């Protein structure tokens, strides 16, 4: 039996082997099919439709999805034979999926990114040079400001085009300021003015209302204070280096801890609860704090939540560093470098439509913030809602002190979660500001692999 079994196993194995080979061959073919940019041309296969399909992806909520869909529908209407396959998700899921798609070779042709993720893809040559579509091509960049184009460059190549810039700014509830008899903030206010406003507000508003939310947990806000000193979280050239030190972190945590201890802002407990709650349940949206720090383009969202109870307005984050400055965060559009020439060309034409066509501009409005091209602003200016007008006017008012965030190195995504952990640890008194500053530098350096 044994010997027979052994003999039997030989042909069996060969058969198995052949079988396995067949399976893996089929698998490889499938995989190869998956890797190849999708069939696009109106050639033999796609004869029926006879057009090009461009896969477009973006992140956002329902309002934004509707706008994207309307614009892409309009484009398809005007360009017969072009269909735009769409995929979208909320910010978190979108950026969880994107690296997997790139790793698997099935990333969308047209995608949206920010300076936080761009170098992950740009450093591996995954994003097309947008200038190559500009000279004589479908993409008109002539009305973009120098600053906005420079912000979309990675090591000299234009890998992403600004579709909206937003500023982490102080949002304040003017009604609560009036109620407490506190003067509204100006463009050049300092941390001391902010802190005393917080205390006055807490003192003069009814029980349960506070001056501000606790923002020690916010990395973009911290970076705003770094920019005021000519620094930033990471090296401006996206190399694996930090561009601040532990003392900067300590200063940041100490300021907030002192304000918290003085009763000027939310407690750590409330902050922790808010950080996992839907935004309309958070303290500022509920009208329980007079100030909050948020991206300026979110003003309309918060105004909707606050409603009639108070009119919201924007001011820069107070000056902590050497000179007043505001950090500008961008949302950008990119084209997948792996797309076939035909698809890439069509994608560039869609991008051009998106940023330069007045109808598209009007549909999108200032959804992602202030655009980088003057014609877009002109197209929407006339019919802006009052809230959006405030966002635009605020961006224009602080333009002189605005500094674009630069592409971050790989591993930088840890910045936000780390800041939130350390900010809360300081708030709960589990870490003192000096220790938190040191941890911030150590852990952030480790996560980007800084030498």
């Amino acid at each position: 039996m044994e010997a027979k079994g052994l003999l039997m196993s030989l042909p069996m194995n060969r058969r198995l082997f052949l079988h396995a080979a067949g399976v893996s061959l089929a698998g490889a073919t499938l995989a190869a099919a998956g890797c190849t940019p999708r069939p696009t041309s109106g050639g033999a296969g796609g004869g029926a439709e006879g057009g090009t399909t461009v896969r477009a992806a973006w992140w956002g909520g329902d309002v934004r999805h509707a706008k994207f869909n309307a614009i892409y529908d309009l484009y398809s209407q005007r360009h017969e034979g072009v269909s735009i396959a769409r995929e979208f998700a909320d910010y978190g899921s979108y950026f969880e999926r994107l690296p997997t798609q790139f790793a698997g070779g099935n990333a969308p042709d047209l995608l949206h990114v920010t300076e936080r993720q761009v170098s992950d893809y740009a450093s591996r040559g995954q994003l097309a040079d947008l200038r190559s579509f500009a000279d004589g091509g479908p993409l008109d960049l002539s009305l973009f400001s120098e600053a906005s184009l420079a912000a979309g460059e990675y090591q000299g190549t234009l890998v992403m085009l600004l579709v909206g810039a937003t500023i982490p700014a102080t949002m304040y509830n003017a009604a609560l300021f009036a109620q407490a008899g506190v003067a509204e903030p100006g463009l050049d206010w300092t941390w001391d003015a902010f802190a005393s406003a917080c205390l006055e507000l807490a003192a003069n508003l009814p029980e349960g209302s506070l001056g501000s939310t606790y923002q020690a947990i916010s990395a973009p806000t911290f970076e705003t204070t770094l920019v005021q000193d000519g620094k930033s979280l990471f090296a401006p050239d996206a190399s694996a280096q930090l561009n601040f030190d532990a003392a900067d972190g300590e200063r940041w945590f100490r300021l907030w801890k002192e304000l918290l201890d003085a009763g000027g802002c939310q407690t750590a407990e409330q902050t922790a609860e808010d950080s996992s709650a839907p935004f309309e349940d958070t303290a500022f949206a509920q009208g329980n704090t007079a100030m909050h720090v948020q991206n300026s383009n979110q003003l309309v969202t918060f105004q909707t939540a606050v409603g009639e109870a108070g009119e919201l307005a924007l001011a820069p984050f107070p000056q902590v560093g050497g000179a007043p400055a505001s950090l500008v965060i961008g949302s950008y559009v990119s084209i997948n470098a792996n797309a076939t020439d035909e698809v890439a060309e069509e994608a560039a034409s869609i991008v051009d439509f998106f940023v330069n066509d007045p109808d598209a501009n009007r549909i999108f409005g200032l959804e992602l913030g202030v655009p980088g091209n003057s014609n877009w602003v002109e197209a929407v200016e006339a019919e802006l809602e009052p809230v959006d007008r405030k966002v635009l006017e605020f961006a224009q008012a602080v333009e002189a002190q605005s500094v674009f965030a630069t592409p971050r190195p790989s591993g930088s995504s840890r910045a936000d979660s780390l800041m939130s952990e350390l900010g809360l640890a300081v708030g709960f008194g589990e870490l003192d500001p000096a220790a938190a500053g040191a941890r911030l530098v150590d852990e952030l350096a480790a996560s980007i692999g800084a030498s």
Partner: protein
Amino acid sequence: MTQTTLSRRTVAEPPLDPPVRRTRSAWAKQEERAAWVMLTPWLLGLVAITAVPMVASLVLSFTDYRLLSSPSWVGLENYVRLLDDPRFTKAIGVTFRYVFVSVPLQLAFALALALLLNRGVRGLRFYRSAFYLPSLLGASVTIAILWRQVFGSEGIFNALLGLFGVNGPSWIGNPDHALGTLVVLNVWTFGSPMVIFLAGLRQIPREYYEAAAVDGAGRLSQFFRVTLPLLTPVVFFNVILQFIHAFQAFTPSYIVSGGSGGPVDSTLFYTLYLYQRGFTQFEMGYASAMAWILLLIIGVFTAANFVASRYWVFYGDEK
């Protein structure tokens, strides 16, 4: 199955002449082939969905793999790095606290209710389903969201405390209590072990209780001398199952803490940290190493449980 049938026949029947023998063995072979064919979908699933990814993750655990760049071999580096990763240590601590507090509580609760239901309550079917319901819902996103509403600073629980003049904190916003709310959530899903306990209780012959009663045993001593010893195999089964389940808990913390494991890492479950490393920081090699450590922990724990079971689990056929 096939083999035992075959051997029994060989023993029972007198020696057969070769031709018949060949036919039977051909038939057996055919039956075996049929078995394999029937098993194919399951086998394909096992290989493609479980075995291959597991081996791949083992290999990846020895690499530095950032998803966008190809993996590079680093040997044991990921495992070494784990040893002085403070958040890893924290995650282990949180998970162990969660497992060792919530599972015993949950099982005690399940057993208590099973005993109650086993006393011939009217409407047993209704109660059984009602108590089982949380087990079906407990790990879901909806319930985790509900939990946030219940235990938030303005939540139902504090409103209830307010009736008694107690001003409760934000249970989920406070690092001292946040894990506690997740323990309560897990205890609340006592339904599935309860149903199993109930089935176990039904298996215990009435006569034992009658005999015990004749010997003068009271309720309490009946429970400790009859019920519990005869129920130990079921207890053991529930212990193993619920412990493994609790080690792998993810959703409650993910939803209640908004994916952060906060406040201040107080609800940083092992699997949540693994997820953060793998899917928000894209360190797949590191995450794979973590996955294997978790498998090891669960394996060691389960093995230890089996060894210990020799000393406390009583099977009816033992003397």
